[in-house]
């Protein structure tokens, strides 16, 4: 069954008229069939949409929204809900002023992946009405200025959706139609990290060097990250000693991404937004996910973020010298 | 001028303590000569490598051919550093930047009324001394200057000993609150201006904190002045000094290039951003 934008809107309207919230933070249909913009609806719902393109995580907007009087209803996908929970735990939002409505997610479509199929001039995207196989492998009809093209939906889902292992919401005030969420996990969450781990160190080095050298320091990865919620980032603070605005040297590329990964280490909710928003398509989630993997392997599951707790029998740092190849 | 972002080396030859948080720095080039010539109201970028760079208005008069002076209030990284510097310290200087008070055109032969508050006297001091040195080019000069307290009056010595001693210049000083040892006027500058009640045929040069500018301007209009008669200077975050780095604009005007001196009617046509 498809997730219908109108049904979600109906629910939202009911909640607002029931007095659960005073305004709604959701997505708004944009210029193109695929473009959806995080938007605040205060008096009308013109352009309201919830479709396969609403990939943006709205929870970080709640930092500012929850400073206002009254309540904001926010639509939360399963992967977003952990971010919201973390923001609450770290006291970055006033949870009482938020009504989190969990909405189902069947995976979101990555336009870049569609374009990688050589598609240009997209003017419309539809789900193929016929041929919907029972296993849900739907096709998309991409209508363009230069003709139509059919692409299997699954092949153009965001990477973050393919590695999404959890379709359950946490900490929402209400979850609407959870049965419509679809499992999009391809079973390869740590494949990417493992692939890099298995490279010789020279190769790892050149892999990251070449990836990170694309970085233009637009800060999109940081600004979108629900975990990076410091009121003032050290990289913007001229007094911090490590402030920088541009990557004047390879070192600064490394520093920025290492420190960012370290700061979210153990707190990262793996929502994949960093990689989604990177204009240069740097697989930034591979840094964060490396930490997730390390933590899982070294410390197992924990209630507190890994860097804010310990056990007396923790692994010694020497574990990293014992694995992989030696340089000396 | 092309090498606009590369500064030259200047030497601080003298540091004068004006008020508890304002010092006046005298700067010359390494060769002992003035670094460059300027017009009253123009600014220069001063910097210390690794500490910071900021725009300051040149407070000495262009008619001074020996050196430049900058009156600097302590309010940030660079200014803190400068305040702890000693004579002989080299600094980097580039400029001059921005426009200037129309001393050779609109202001000529006019009666001038200077209104300044606090450190706002700094940019006007350049004009005042320029006019003093070319006294015959200008009509009557009135100066209304106020500060928080007597100790916060910048250039107090010069005001008393030189300006007040000059014929044809009337200086009116005021401080915000009563203070021991002060027999002069007490009260805010805008009110004092109203009290003094100047003729509306004067051209006004106004500089001070935003709130003072706002009220003084309103007061002047109430008194019958037109906005076209009032000039003021602005200060914003500036980096390049040449209208390219893109941060000091008010609407379509760049303060560093189109300003810092604006006539109030021009300013009014711009978006109310500051």
């Amino acid at each position: 069954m498809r997730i219908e934008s109108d049904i979600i809107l109906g629910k939202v309207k009911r909640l607002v008229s029931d007095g659960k919230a005073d305004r709604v933070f959701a997505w708004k249909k944009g210029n193109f069939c695929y473009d959806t913009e995080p938007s605040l609806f205060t008096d009308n719902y013109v352009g309201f949409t919830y479709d396969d393109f609403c990939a943006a995580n709205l929870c970080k907007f709640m930092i500012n929204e929850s400073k206002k009087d009254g309540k904001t209803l926010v639509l939360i996908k399963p992967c977003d809900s952990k971010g919201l929970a973390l923001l609450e735990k770290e006291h970055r939002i006033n949870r009482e002023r938020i009504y989190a409505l969990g909405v189902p997610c069947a995976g979101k479509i990555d336009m870049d992946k569609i374009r990688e199929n050589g598609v240009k001039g997209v003017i419309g995207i539809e789900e193929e009405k016929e041929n919907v196989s029972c296993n849900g492998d739907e096709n998309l009809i991409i209508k363009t200025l230069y003709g139509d093209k059919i692409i299997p939906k699954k092949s153009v889902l965001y990477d973050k959706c393919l590695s999404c292992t959890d379709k359950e919401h946490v900490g929402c005030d209400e979850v609407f139609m959870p049965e419509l969420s679809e499992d999009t996990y391809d079973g390869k969450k740590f494949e990417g990290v493992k692939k890099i781990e298995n490279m010789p160190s020279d190769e790892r080095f050149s892999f990251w060097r070449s990836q990170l050298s694309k970085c233009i320091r637009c800060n999109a990865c940081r600004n979108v990250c629900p975990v990076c919620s410091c009121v003032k980032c050290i990289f913007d603070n001229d007094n911090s000693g490590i402030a920088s605005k541009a990557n004047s040297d390879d070192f600064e590329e490394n520093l920025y991404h290492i420190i960012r990964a370290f700061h979210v280490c153990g707190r990262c909710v793996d929502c994949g937004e960093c990689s989604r928003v990177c204009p240069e398509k740097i697989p930034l989630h591979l840094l964060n996910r490396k930490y997730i993997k390390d933590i899982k392997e070294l410390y197992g599951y924990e209630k507190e973020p890994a860097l804010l707790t310990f056990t007396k029998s923790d692994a010694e740092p020497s574990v990293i010298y014992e694995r992989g190849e030696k340089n000396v | 001028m092309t090498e606009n972002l590369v500064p030259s080396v200047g030497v601080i030859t003298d540091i004068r303590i004006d008020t508890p948080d304002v010092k006046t720095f005298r700067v010359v080039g390494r060769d002992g000569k003035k670094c460059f010539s300027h017009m009253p109201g123009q600014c220069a970028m001063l910097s210390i490598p690794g500490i910071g760079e900021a725009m300051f208005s040149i407070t000495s008069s262009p008619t001074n051919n020996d050196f430049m002076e900058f009156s600097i209030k302590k309010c940030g990284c660079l200014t803190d550093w400068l305040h702890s510097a000693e004579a002989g310290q080299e600094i980097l200087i580039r400029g001059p930047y921005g426009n200037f008070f129309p001393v050779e055109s609109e202001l000529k032969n006019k009666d001038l009324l200077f209104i300044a508050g606090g450190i706002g006297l700094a940019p006007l001091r350049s004009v005042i001394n320029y006019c003093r040195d070319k006294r015959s080019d200008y009509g009557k000069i009135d100066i209304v200057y106020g500060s928080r307290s007597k100790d916060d009056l910048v250039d107090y010595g010069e005001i008393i000993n030189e300006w007040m001693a000059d014929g044809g210049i009337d200086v009116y000083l005021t401080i915000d609150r009563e203070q021991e040892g002060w027999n002069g006027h007490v009260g805010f500058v805008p009110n004092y201006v109203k009290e003094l009640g100047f003729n509306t045929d004067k051209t006004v040069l106004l500089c001070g904190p935003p709130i003072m500018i706002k009220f003084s301007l309103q007061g002047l209009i109430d008194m019958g002045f037109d906005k076209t008669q009032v000039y003021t200077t602005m200060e914003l975050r500036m980096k390049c000094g040449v209208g390219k780095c893109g941060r000091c604009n008010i609407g379509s005007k760049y303060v560093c290039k189109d300003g810092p001196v604006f006539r109030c009617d021009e300013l009014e046509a711009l978006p109310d951003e500051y």
Partner: protein
Amino acid sequence: MNRIGVFVCHCGSNIAAAVDVKQVAEALGREQNVVFSAEYQYMCSENGQKLIKNAVKENALTGIVVCSCSPRMHEATFRKTASEAGINPYMVEIANIREQCSWVHKDITAATSKAIILGRAAIAKVRFNEPLTVGESGVTKRALVIGGGIAGIQTALDIADAGYKVDIVEKKPTIGGKMAQLDKTFPTLDCAACILTPKMVEAARHENIKLYTYSEVEEVKGYVGNFSVKIRKKARYVRENLCSGCGACALKCPSRNSGNEFNTGLDKRGAIYIPFAQAIPNIPVIDAEHCIKFRTGKCGLCQMNCAAQAIDFSQKDEIIEEKYGAIVAATGFDIINLDKFGEYGYKTYPDVVTSLEFERIMNAAGPTKGHLERPSDGRQPKTLVFVQCVGSRDTSGRGKEYCSKICCMYTAKHAMLTREKYPDTDVYVFYIDVRAPGKNFDEFYRRAAEQYGVHYIKGMVGKIYDDGNGNLMVRGSDIIANEQLTIKADMVILAAAAKPDDSARSLGTMLTASMDTNDFFTEAHPKLRPVESPTAGVFLSGFCQGPKDIPETVAQAGAAAVKVIGLLSKDRLKSNPCVARSDSLICSGCSNCEKVCPFGAITYADARVNDGTGMETRRVAVVNEAVCHGCGACAAACPSGAMDLMGFTSKQIFAEVDAVCR
């Protein structure tokens, strides 16, 4: 502007032999901001210090760098020198060119250039030093002891004897704790009550001790020297000031349904009761849950029979707020719940009992008046099986990984007492190891095994079951004989693991005192500060810190008392100024710092801040300087850099790193 003076010490030939001190002084003299540089034979000598003082005055120095021995030696000396010269003592940095340079590097060129680099690092750091002042706070001359067992009583007595006021808060209606329930004590076999009750009485009578029984700590605020504690005094429904302790009420109470806690539930008590004969205070308490008056509104027999008119059904819990300078945790222990150990059939078979229950059975004031009778039918058991390490040293996750320490000895005690009173009884003890490393302990155990003929079997009990005829069958292994064996037992006694009392965890949170995963309080240093919590002003007494027997508990109680006395004897507490500081303009209030602080020095407050974008109320971290020890864990955990450590600020360390790498 910084005006730095550099002072290079020869330390006789200790430094000068391997480092060209002249060259060091010259090189450092050329560094930015350095306006004075000199070398001298012994900087720490009177003349050396005079040199420094003169240089400070003549050159208006703002900072001092001494290149000398380790700061661990003479940092304090030179700070004092600076202070005498009129500059802040924290404007001094030491470059360690002796221990970490001249003594370890033989090559003069290498050592000299390293000394210059170390000097540069110190200069770089001192540029960012800030004048710091030692904070001071007063001390409330009153201590709080939480827990009225032997540990708490002993600590309180020692403190009170030293002349300081002490309050004991005990959650039970009487003080005495677990020791009051014991029959005899190992290895001397003297009567527990006989040695404990005099102490209880002394505590009650002591002019410096105030008892809050049937009370619990509800909230702790403040910090070392200045705690403010809320104590909930639960309603007894008996007016303490009127009650004469005659006990008539308890006798007349028609309710007989409540298990008697003192006898581990082996017999019943009334709804109004005095826990035991020697209870202190000797005042009854009404158990509202079982009281007929409270349940139905009818009854009130006790009230009618109270000559003193002390019964007051309308009594309410009372909250008492008191200020203390020090707090001692003495919350003691309890035994673990055996629900997860189905194989022993503790819940299933009434004749499987815990050691504490057995203790009551053997006690003359116990449910059986000291006769060995088994709970199911009151018959005297002929075969007793003791099982040790029930839940102790357990790695299966059901019990505790640690050794409860006291079980081996009390089991030997029980076995011995049984054999002594009832020589016709067969006594078996299953053990993993017998641990007897105390004074006269091993002798005691050997006496049980050798003289008293207790059968010690090294092995584990796998299952206890009913053979169908009402007999308990104990199946276990004897790993010495390497065989499985089954013993038909009349009674089984389980040496259940001891664990910290349940109240410890919530108390730990209130005190911000750190605890380990077993809920034992963590000591400030495992070897050197074993009776102090890392949280300043909080001390540990007894089992709540780790398994202990009575003499160890009493010894630690005394030690904790000494620490408390030491603290209370001071009028002002000086605090290290090198503490963390949070910048409220940058702090996001995320709580990361709070979580890594071992001392609970960080709290949160709503602050009005304006970072240039308008006034806002934000949750920001606040460091309690009196509590902070200055480790810097918070500064490294803070992602935004809002938290910094005075004396070791990020700026200072960056400057040092830069100087070292230049």
